[in-house]
């Protein structure tokens, strides 16, 4: 998996609430598209008009924001379906950092597992960042520094953010989780042996077809 440490780039303001993963990547295109090309289908329902042409109203279609790599999103971003392709699609269109007041829980976890930094800010800080991104209009760079847990505005002002230490270390290391877990295989085996005794009805299924 891709590690995340620091990043600078353009920030696109996208102040819409409850953007669900069906909007980020509809299931039909997700199933028919190889992972490497999912970025072409990200935000499909918002990005294109019915005739297939670009929808000029969608923020990431506007020339100022074409190369944006930081998305300032609205409340409950990534709610809905568990599809991990939503994160792959955002990555595929070049997004590395998503900032929102709140995220869908499963989407948040999927970001961590794929090296995309999800930054949760309280409403006031979020509103301020949103305003700065709107005013900058794609003309200035924003920064994200995970080790120091700060976002940097174009004028150099820093906005600190919180992140769970476990999530932080996974993002920084970018390691394969299965490999990490396998180093604990004795502990897992011991737990299972004890649980077979404590809760044998859970394990009775091993004997059935």
């Amino acid at each position, binding site marked *: 998996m891709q590690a995340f440490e620091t990043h600078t780039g353009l920030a696109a303001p996208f102040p*819409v*609430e*409850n953007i*669900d993963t*069906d*909007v980020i990547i*509809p*299931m*039909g295109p997700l*199933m028919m598209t190889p992972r490497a090309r999912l970025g072409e289908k990200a935000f*499909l*329902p*918002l990005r294109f008009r*019915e005739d297939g042409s670009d929808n000029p109203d969608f923020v990431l279609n506007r020339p100022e924001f074409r190369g944006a790599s930081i998305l300032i999103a609205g*409340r*409950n971003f990534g*709610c*809905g*379906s*568990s*599809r*991990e392709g939503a*994160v792959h699609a955002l990555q595929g269109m070049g997004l590395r950092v998503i900032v929102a007041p*709140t*995220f*869908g*829980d*499963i989407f948040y*976890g*999927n970001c961590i*597992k*794929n090296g995309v930094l999800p930054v949760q800010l309280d409403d006031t800080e979020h509103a301020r960042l949103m305003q700065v991104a709107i005013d900058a209009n794609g003309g200035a760079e924003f920064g994200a520094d995970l080790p120091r847990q700060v976002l940097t505005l174009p004028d150099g002002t820093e906005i600190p953010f919180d992140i*769970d*230490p*476990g*999530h*932080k*270390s*996974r993002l920084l290391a970018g390691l394969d*989780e*299965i490999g990490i*877990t*396998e180093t*604990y*295989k004795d*502990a*897992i085996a011991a*737990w*299972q042996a004890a*649980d077979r005794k404590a*809760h*044998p*009805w*859970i394990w*009775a*299924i*091993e004997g*059935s*077809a």
Partner: protein
Amino acid sequence: MSNGTLFGKLWNRHLILTNPEGLDLIHVDRSLLTDLSGTVGLEEMEEDGRKVANPALHAAMPDHVIPTGREDTPQQAKLRERFVRNLDRLSVQQGIRHFGRGSGRQGIVHVVGLEQGFTLPGATLVCGDSHTSTHGAVGALAWGIGSTEVKHVLATQTLWMKRPKTARVWLDGSLKRGVFSKDLILWLIGELGADFGREHAVEFAGPAIDALSIEARASLCNLGVEMGARFALIAPDEKTFAYHRGRPYVPDGELWESALEDWRTLHSDVTAIFDKEVRLDVSDVTPQITWGVSPEHVTGRGGAVPAEGAESGALDYMGLCAGQSLIGLPVDYVFIGSCANSRIEDLRIAADIVRGQQVAGGVTAWVVPGSEAVKQLAEAEGLADIFIAAGFEWREPGCSMCNAVNGDLVAPGKRAVSTSNRNFVGRQGPNARTHLASPATAALCALAGEIRIAEPEAAICPAG
């Protein structure tokens, strides 16, 4: 620390260790594999040449992609080849039980897990599908995961998790006749918002929950995730145990007795401390229907769209104006199905309303039973005949028009009343307009050919 909550007890029971960064390694007792995330997870295992750690703790079945009609279109045949066949092939290869079409056990994972007794009180259960919260209805600790996590569970039978906070939604009072658990949960989402449960495990409790049947609780927990709760949970009670007894994967004899003794301890203590708690009275809840593109865009006030505060994008998409009433809007599709409402009780409720009547002209009305077991039972009870005589299409089990990736979809710009759980933009097909409601409301709308909502007093079925 469990703080005496049911969630805490179940979490601690499955905690293998906590790493230095504070992530918990949790044991997974059961996993369900769908023909989407399950297939992908198994394919990745194959690519890496990995063996599944504990094959007996998984069950695989096609639901999302498998077509529900009689014949495949070329597109459906292609999807079947890639997703449905591969799930079967890789399950067999890894020694995982697979419930294929015709096995008598195939169906939507969240219907099958419960009805087969694969889901047990007190067990952890995961699936690469967000509606895994459904299984909390019987006191399982169940949550939806992404496909990287599916692979992790296949390889290690564990997951790294950050311990969520706990919340309790305590519901007093009792539902009126003609108001169902689907109405209750839609109302709750409207009251509390689509992100109320974010970062929390939400326990539903109180007299109004006690009164619900297990299947009604399943519908409620199913939509728990639509209020942001990755974990929805209801303490198991005697109803739960009566529901479980004798199901195929539930142990019997001495094991049943010791399980029962343990399951009776699975509830939050009276002294339990939750991070967040709300208490509401459900006595005045009316039948609910959504007007917008999030489940929190819901109305119980006689179908009225809010006059103020409605997001204009949502209204445009739905072809509605602020302040208007939904009542009387022509309906093109009615879909009774999905893991929210495709169980036998749902079909009984809908069939009672439909009996002896006709679907209105111009309405495409489908009933898609949640599993082969539900389908067989509904046929034996004569429910299928009622639907078919009324002009409904009676289809094979699967997710069908809930997710529209299997070729079953609502045509662009058309209006659907659906018993599913998501009214997102494009969810039921590009530009499809979805109104979520209970099976009773969906049945009424099919007969009327327009949106109707029953007055609770006038309803014919007991709350369930």
